[in-house]
């Protein structure tokens, strides 16, 4: 709240006479002036005088008049009390320990699984009538005479409950405790190339009998592989959504910077530019809206209520983002009036500072204007080199504006202003020369 208040009440006494920035206090103003305009020594003295006058005036002011000012200050202190910087709390990570324990365990497990797969591969190549014998050559079967109970369910083996061997590890279990792996699935596991499940024919006589442990290991490996490399539609849409949000953030930051600058009366940015940036933000907001609608519209299976919840949550979050972060951006239209009023009052009070520094365009973002063939575009151009320069810069500004590079526009504008000034001076000088 304090912020919005401070934004509307510009305190005239603390405006910087060079850039019209509102600095709100005497010390700020002097510091600002020394930082940014230290070259203009005479201006510095004048500002000190000005501040001195203001100080005298303030000292004369009755205590009562300062009351709102004081309460504002105390309110800020109140906020400060709650926002004082605080060391981040202690924390401790167990990730390293966790991963070590897991690695030890998984190394063992992975090598086991790999061994099973190699055996499986060999088992698949066994053909012919002596299959059982060949299988036993490959994997040593446990001696049945020493095992009287099934190790899984602890039931005693007898005539009806017979011993069976796992083809992969050779251990013994009863029939209900074993499971079967069809040849086709086995092939799929071994080759790892994804084949369509529907084409698999199941010939039960070909199945391999496995114990529960081996089945479990093969299955969890299979599951991990199946999940790799598939990205559902919702993820693709969501990624697009996030990318746009990310881009928008920089536009919003830039817009806020432009707005603040315009509001404080600086002419670094153009009002039209702010407007067009704002409308491009609005367009992006619409795109966000459309994508989030698409996310909601993705068909879900009825057994997945959570997916529906997720879709709705994304939609809600996006609309809220648009409402609270994009739509609330201040409109530049009322700025226009404000600015006009300000310019009028200040242009009378202060002379334009006579030395302007040409700011080189710092193209940090990788954008640079194309070189346009000047002869072609402007055939009637004068041969004055200054005039040429001016035209080139004008062209650059045009391009920069098309590319939404408003910061470049600002620095180019400054260049242009300088060039124009120089041109004018030269014209005046030459007029003098000719008249004399």
């Amino acid at each position, binding site marked *: 709240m304090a912020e919005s208040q401070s934004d509307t009440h510009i305190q005239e006494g603390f405006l910087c006479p060079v850039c019209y920035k509102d600095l709100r206090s005497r010390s700020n103003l002097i510091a600002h002036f020394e930082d940014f305009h230290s070259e203009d020594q005479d201006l510095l003295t004048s500002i000190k005088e000005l501040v001195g006058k203001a100080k005298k005036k303030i000292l004369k002011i009755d205590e009562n008049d300062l009351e709102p000012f004081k309460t504002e200050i105390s309110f800020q202190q109140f906020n400060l009390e709650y926002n004082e910087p605080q060391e981040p709390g202690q924390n401790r990570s167990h990730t390293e320990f966790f991963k070590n324990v*897991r690695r030890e365990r998984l190394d063992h497990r992975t090598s086991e699984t790999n061994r099973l797969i190699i055996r499986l591969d060999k088992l698949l190549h066994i053909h012919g009538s002596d299959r059982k014998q060949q299988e036993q050559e490959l994997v040593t079967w446990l001696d049945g005479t020493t095992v009287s109970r099934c190790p899984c369910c602890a039931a005693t083996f007898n005539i009806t409950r017979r011993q069976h061997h796992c083809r992969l590890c050779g251990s013994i279990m009863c029939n209900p405790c074993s499971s079967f792996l069809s040849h086709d699935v086995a092939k799929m596991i071994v080759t790892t190339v994804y084949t369509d499940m529907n084409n698999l024919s199941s010939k039960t006589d070909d199945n391999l009998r496995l114990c529960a442990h081996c089945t479990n290991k093969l299955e969890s490996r299979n599951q991990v592989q199946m999940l790799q490399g598939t990205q559902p539609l919702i993820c693709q849409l969501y990624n697009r959504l996030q990318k746009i949000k990310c881009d928008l953030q920089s536009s919003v930051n830039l817009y806020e910077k432009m707005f603040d600058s315009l509001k404080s009366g600086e002419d670094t940015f153009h009002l039209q530019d702010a407007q067009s940036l704002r409308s491009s933000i609005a367009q992006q907001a619409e795109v966000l809206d459309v994508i989030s609608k698409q996310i909601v519209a993705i068909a879900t299976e009825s057994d997945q209520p959570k997916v529906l919840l997720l879709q709705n949550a994304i939609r809600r979050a996006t609309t809220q983002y648009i409402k609270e972060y994009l739509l609330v951006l201040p409109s530049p239209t009322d700025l226009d009036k404000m600015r006009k009023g300000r310019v009028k009052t200040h242009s009378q009070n202060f002379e334009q500072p006579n030395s302007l520094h040409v700011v080189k365009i710092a193209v940090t973002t990788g954008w640079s204007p194309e070189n346009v063939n000047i002869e072609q575009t402007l055939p009637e151009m004068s041969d004055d080199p200054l005039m040429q320069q001016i035209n080139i810069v004008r062209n650059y500004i045009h391009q920069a504006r098309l590319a939404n590079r408003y910061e470049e526009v600002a620095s180019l504008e400054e260049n242009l202003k300088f060039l124009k000034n120089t041109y004018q001076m030269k014209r005046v000088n030459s007029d003098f020369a000719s008249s004399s």
Partner: protein
Amino acid sequence: MNVITAVKAYITKMIEESEPGMKILLMDKETTSIISMVYGQSEIQQKEVFLLERIDSGNNNSNSGLRYLKCLVFLRPTPQNIDLLSKELRNPRYGAYYIYFSNIVAKADVKILAENDEQEVVKDVQELYMDYLAVNPHLFSFGLSTCMANWKTFTLQRSVQGLASVLLSLTKCPIIRYQKFSNLCHELAQKVDELINKESTLFTFGQSSQPLLLILDRRCDPVTPLLNQWTYQAMVHELLTINNNRVNLSKVKGISKELAEVVLSAEQDPFYAKNIYLNFGDIGQNIKELMEHFQEKAKSHQKVESISDMKAFVETYPQFKKLSGNVSKHVTVVGELSSMLSEYELLDVSEIEQEITSQTDHSSHLQSIRKLLNPGGNRKIRDLDAAKLVMLYALRYRSHSSNDIGGLIKMLKKRNVSEYLISSIDSVLKYAGRYAQPSEIFNVVEAVKITKRLFKGLNGVDNVYTQHKPVLNEILDEIVKGRLREDLYPRLGGFTSQQINSRSQDVIVFFIGGVTYEESLTVHVFNKNNPEMRVILGGTTIHNSKSFLEEANETIRANV
């Protein structure tokens, strides 16, 4: 020292350290409250956390996994949670797990989890110490409604863990002092000290001064929780009950569905933040201003004539909507409070309460209570308030030669006051027992103080309804002067000569048996008046008079 900032920083860390992507937050019952105290659902959605889930909800075994979701796990390190999480990791429903424990977790438990993570879905395991409810910047609670009765079985252990996490989140390694009369305080102090020594690497901070942890027993001040309150937060809690920042209004007549439960959070509600410590009169004024502001806005919305009006309307509408929700919430709450005030004649009740607590005039106090209790007087005061008045009288004058506690109880019986409330009088007296002597709990006796009070009264500072000062006020005063008595508040292991004189700037005061919002206000005012001091207040729970009576009854029943 700000517990809300601390918790928020942890949550931000939690969310930012997991990589970007759609996230689900898996919590238990307690951690859900911990997070909901500082973040609303819509706020957390802006941070990519779209789904919230309870690990103990029971319907997690449906194997419809969403492997493209990242799962943030935030749990207390309890055996049940380790067990549930192990099951979850064995059959992971989500693609990646970032596990955060709210407190110190045993190595053995981490090992169990690691052994269950066969699909290598866990990316991070950390301890982030937010094992408490951050209520206000200077106020925390553990949400343990009956503390003393379950001391041995549960609450001692929980308090040790909670206090450790408070200290760790604020990076403080304190000296510990406790109230001598209370065994509970001594026990808790010892356990916390043991934990600090055991985890000495965690408790190593570059501290500029030595903070103080002062452990108090609710029985040193049974008066404060019995009083009617007049500041916004305290009043809402006393009359409507605040539970984890939520107020249940469903019993209010003609309440609309969306206002059946409202959230009062100073973090998300600027009006509440502004008025939380103001007294009822000021709130009335402020709510009038809020209404006017709202009506002005509403009026400007009504004249949508041109296209530009329309555009302005659309642009400001979200804020308007938010404002209107806020206005109707506070108008409802304040309206309900004020109707309760007049219906139960709380102004009259409170005036007598305050007089009993801060003035000495036995006969006139007895007179006023009799007048209020008189059944022929057609007064509408609640049985609860009537019984509380008798309790205050009994606490104040139990050793007075001509007291008439018996006579007042008879009057209550004539009013058909419930057996529960009448037996509560006895419970509260026993609860206060030999610990809280009238001379200590009522700030009236010393001659010096009386003159001070008179002086204050002449200045017109004191309000009739806010004369009472909790015992805590006195204790804080002694701390700031460096005069907290060693014999009443000893330090574990005794003092070295140097420590006696050292004054702590950072103080954490903890009440076994619950704290009150009046004490929270006391601390708030104290912090404001002593900018060099930073005091944080905590309790096993935050009491209003109803919950306090329950606790007192339970404690007497369990014979602690």
